[in-house]
């Protein structure tokens, strides 16, 4: 029986079964994608002459990285950088503090339905609006300056952290939490003993990650007048001061690397 099957198969070629079984669908997807790519490429008009001219400037910029100019605009760089750091710190603290209750509220397994819905709505709004757009609106409302940036970053932090915190709480080990509940703990005690120890390491890790993101984002808020190093950077580009721009970018990269290193150490310690 099986040998007849074998005899049938011998001498016949073998092809790997396709990922998408339906041949028509497979080809439609492939052709559709290729057609889209062609259409997309066609609609980008690239001024190659302009690009060619730009190569020199691009090269000048690359060279600028070998001789960054920290000195001539140091006071601008310093005040911008300080403002970025200040906004990052303040917004991270406020954002993390607010996102904890909202995160608790957005976890279906510990929050009652009305609170759950409200908290999820806050998270959804915060995540759907990008930092830069929020910053534009807040600058329009509160005026130029780091306050708008601070509020923007706090708001974005809430959406990010609450969502991940809520997901973490929803995925936690029920048995541990139940054991604490069984001991007759009150709600706060229950959160403190049953939930907090389980999600704390991840919360610390995510907070560190968010501080990192907040700093990176603070570097662009200045483009719309919401304070930070972005304004200085924008000016440097406008004046074609590539060596100053390079200096600022190096500082940003350096600080991000330092933050990542720090968060690596902290995460390793809390686990």
């Amino acid at each position, binding site marked *: 029986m*099986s040998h007849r099957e074998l005899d049938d198969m011998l001498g016949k070629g*073998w092809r*790997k079964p396709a990922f998408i079984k339906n041949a028509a669908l497979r080809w439609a997807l492939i052709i559709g994608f290729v057609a889209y790519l062609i259409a997309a490429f066609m609609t980008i008009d690239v001024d190659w002459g302009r690009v060619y001219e730009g190569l020199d400037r691009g090269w000048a910029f690359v060279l600028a990285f070998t001789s960054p100019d920290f000195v001539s605009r140091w006071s601008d760089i310093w005040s911008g950088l300080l403002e970025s750091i200040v906004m990052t710190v303040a917004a991270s603290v406020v954002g993390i503090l607010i996102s904890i209750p909202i995160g608790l509220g957005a976890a279906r397994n510990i929050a009652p339905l009305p609170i759950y819905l409200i908290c999820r709505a806050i998270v959804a709004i915060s995540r759907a609006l990008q930092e830069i757009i929020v910053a534009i609106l807040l600058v329009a409302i509160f005026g130029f300056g780091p306050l708008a940036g601070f509020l923007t970053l706090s708001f974005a932090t809430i959406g990010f952290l609450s969502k991940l915190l809520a997901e973490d709480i929803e995925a936690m080990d029920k048995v541990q939490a139940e054991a604490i509940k069984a001991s007759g703990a009150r709600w706060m005690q229950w959160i403190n003993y049953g939930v907090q120890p389980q999600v704390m390491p991840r919360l610390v890790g995510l907070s560190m990650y968010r501080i990192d993101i907040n700093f990176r984002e603070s570097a662009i808020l200045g483009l719309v007048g919401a304070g930070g190093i972005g304004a200085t950077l924008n000016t440097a580009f406008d004046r074609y001061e590539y060596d100053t721009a390079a200096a600022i970018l190096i500082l940003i990269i350096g600080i991000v690397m330092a933050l990542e290193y720090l968060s690596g150490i902290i995460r390793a310690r809390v686990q």
Partner: protein
Amino acid sequence: MLRLEKLTKTYKTGDQALKAIDLDVPKGQVLALIGPSGAGKSTMIRCINRLVEPTSGGVLLDDVDLTKLGSGALRKARREMGMIFQEYALVERLTVMENVLSGRLGYVGFWRSFLRRYPQSDVDEAFRLLDRVGLLHMADKRADELSGGQRQRVGICRALIQNPKLLLVDEPTASLDPKTSRQIMRLITELCQERGLAAIINIHDVALAQMFVPRVVGLRFGEIVYDGLPTGLTPDKLTEIYGEEDWEATIEKVEDEDVEAAE
């Protein structure tokens, strides 16, 4: 056919996994390598096909010293040695057929293998092998859909399609239940007989080794402490290999099981 000469492996940590091993494996002989974990069984097998670089000594396959080969010649030499792994080591996300055909990688060029255009003779051989181990109907299933025993059969096919002279088998049954373990061991020894292959089988289950192989080599702390017939494994010998334990019970139990299996 295979000769190990003063094969030594010292890890960077200073652990001496193999201490000047000398071993001769004639053509067509299946031998079991037993010993406690950490005795150097895995290291020895991997030193033979140089998945682990030996520190010193020689590995002679048909009088060619594998330790002196450059990377191209080593690849050719590896084709002569099929390997079967403890955790099957199938490429989980590829189909059974691709896994079997991957045994031919040493023979086909990159683009051919990349486009899965294997020569018809390879495809036929893969079909034959899958039929031999009873998995022909599974050819287009993904490897991670298979049970442990089935995966190990695919692993065996992958090793055999290389058309090797020698099988290196690393704990083939460690992840399997007792019944499947016996089936797999039987399959390996049968296939070796059919094809006249020599094999070195790492195995920690002494009973299983005694059931299926004509020669047992005992390894302890990187040294050979026993080399002979499976029947020669007396409690004293086992104590020498594994350390103090009540071996009488183990051996007797094995024989009981054997009777049961025979019924």
